[in-house]
């Protein structure tokens, strides 16, 4: 994962968030997504291969291997997903997407009849923009 990220970092701006959609950034975003898919997929496959861990020994604190191995995947999964959040934040597919979300007015389609969604509302939009900025900071 590290080597791929280094390769990508060379293709993007210093902060990893290019302002212009460049070919290199697109490649980085795609690679990041492939890595995420592989890592998350591996987690599911590991648990699906029940035959590899349906054993009694070695025990840990009295728990048979089968039980504590399943439990082990919970923290492993959480840490992996945290890394994925970080990776996807560093290589957004569309660096302009946040700005786009904040400025684009809602497109009233047949399925969008309510007309009262917060994102149609300028005041809420401004608020949202502030929150998005906060989102960026607290990461």
């Amino acid at each position, binding site marked *: 994962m590290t080597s791929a990220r280094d390769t990508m970092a060379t293709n993007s701006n210093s902060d990893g968030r290019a302002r212009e959609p460049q070919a290199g950034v697109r490649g980085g975003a795609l690679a990041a997504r492939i890595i995420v898919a592989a890592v998350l997929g591996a987690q599911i496959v590991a648990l699906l291969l029940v035959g590899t861990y349906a054993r009694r020994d070695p025990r840990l*604190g009295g728990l*048979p291997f*089968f*039980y504590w191995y399943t439990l082990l995947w919970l923290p492993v999964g959480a840490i*992996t997903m945290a890394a994925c*959040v970080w990776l996807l934040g560093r290589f957004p597919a*569309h660096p302009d997407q946040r700005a786009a979300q904040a400025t684009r007015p809602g*497109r009233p*389609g047949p399925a969008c009849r309510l007309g*009262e969604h917060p994102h149609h509302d300028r005041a809420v939009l401004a608020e949202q923009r502030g929150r998005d900025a906060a989102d960026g900071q607290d990461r």
Partner: protein
Amino acid sequence: MSALEAGSAPAVATATKVTAAAVAAADAQPGATFHGEQFAVFAVLFAVVAVVGFWASRWRRGGKELNSLDEWGLGGRRFGGFVAWFLIGGDVFTAYTFVAVPGAMYASGAVSGWYAVAYTTMMWPIFFVVMPRLWDVSRRHGYVTPADLVRGRYGSQTLALAVAVTGVVATMPYIALQLVGMQAVLEVMGVGAGATSGFVRDLPVIVAFGVLAVCTYTAGLRAPALLAFVKDFLIYLVVAVAIVVLPHRFGGFGHIFDAAQHKFDTANAAAVAAGRKPNATLIPGSKDLLAYATLALGSAMALFLYPHSITGVLSTRSRNVVRRNAVVLPLYAVLLAFIALLGYVAIAAGVHTTNPRLAIPLLFDHEFPAWFAGVAFAAIAVGALVPAAIMSIAAANLFTRTIYVGYLRRDASAAEQTRVSKVASLLVKFGALVFVLGLDTQNSINLQLLGGVWMLQTFPAVVLGLWRPRLHRYALLTGWAVGMLYGTVQAYHQHSLVAKHFGGALAVVPGLGRTGYIALTAFTLNLAIAVAGTLLLRALRVPNGQDLTVAPTRQSPRPADPTRGWT
């Protein structure tokens, strides 16, 4: 937590004997006397919850009236990570889960109980990939339910109706089962033990649900969001105490697992002697591997398709909240794992019951001082209310958006939609109440089992609809219909000791000769038909519906971008 209960249903069914008998058994064991101190603590905590629920309509209102579905049904789509964590965790891990999973562990071990921990572990990576994308599309186009999404993506009213009906029908028995969880607790406290009429006996459940109905009617999704804090504080407290104190009291986990092994060996030997198949497993053997894996995968895929999971996700304020939540939500799975292990603790503690649902309440009753048992029971009862409220809101939104607006009143205003949804949520809850109190509990369990099978059949339309290539609407509809039919028929033909039909979630997978989760077999069939049908219909140039989600915009001239869904 859907198919999980579906999976544990056979175990529940097996040991329940006939439900009437189970009630009698419960009376004979714990309910003979009324536990005043427990009930007093329980009642005080419940009153606090009611006050919080009524106050919820003022919470985070932001000056807006609750007269749009976004406000009433999605809490204004403004929940941040903290609230969302409690809300999503609160509706995915329900009271019935907290009663049924350890109950299944108590009765038959890993394949019907522990797989729940495996599937809640597997679920988050899937959640991580699917839900931010779902949030994104729904926010951009103002979708409130998964059926809205399907209608927009495939331009098909019929497919949306299929998804909506599946969601409503699968959710209803789920709400009913929350009441079953609450009843288990009240039974152990001996509430209504001396009552001669059924009405007096069920009065606490009726009162609790009445309070819930009024809170939800006025405050919408804000009520369960706020109650989820109370519920989770109580549940984490109880489980933390239980998992620290109890295993130590019974000689540590080594001894507890030995006791479970001993009980299962005895039960299996008795089953074989009686000419039945042994069904208790501490560690899955080679014949159970496929069953265990398919139950885990199928349940993980079905769980977040339930309307109430999607409602929780759509109420958040940003896609990043959804994604970051996937990182911290596994903490609930740790909680579930501890609760599941309490099923084995109950065995070591010598709890004897023919109704596995009572195993955990009885364990608390025996091992905790009365006041703390009261806290534990309040935790379970409040744990029933939160998901029930979210489920009823989700089902009501599905009805309003797809059936009412789609077929009855096409020009319904936002305020009218909200009014209809509010009334529908009341009717859904009332229906669940009548169902539980009026009919045999086994019916709820049967329907719940089917609910997991049905829900998974909407996976191709909803989840695959988020990415390209777009499948054909007629192919999806055919696949859905075949999957539903196959799953229902297969489930109908399963019989167990106590149930002539719907006796279990497992059936022999054609071609493999081993048993697997019916839902996943039906899903495979469904998907194969959807893909093959799409290819065929494209070759025949049958027009697909208009896709309303890909209108080009200034910022992203290429909406078909395959990487877009990942951001």
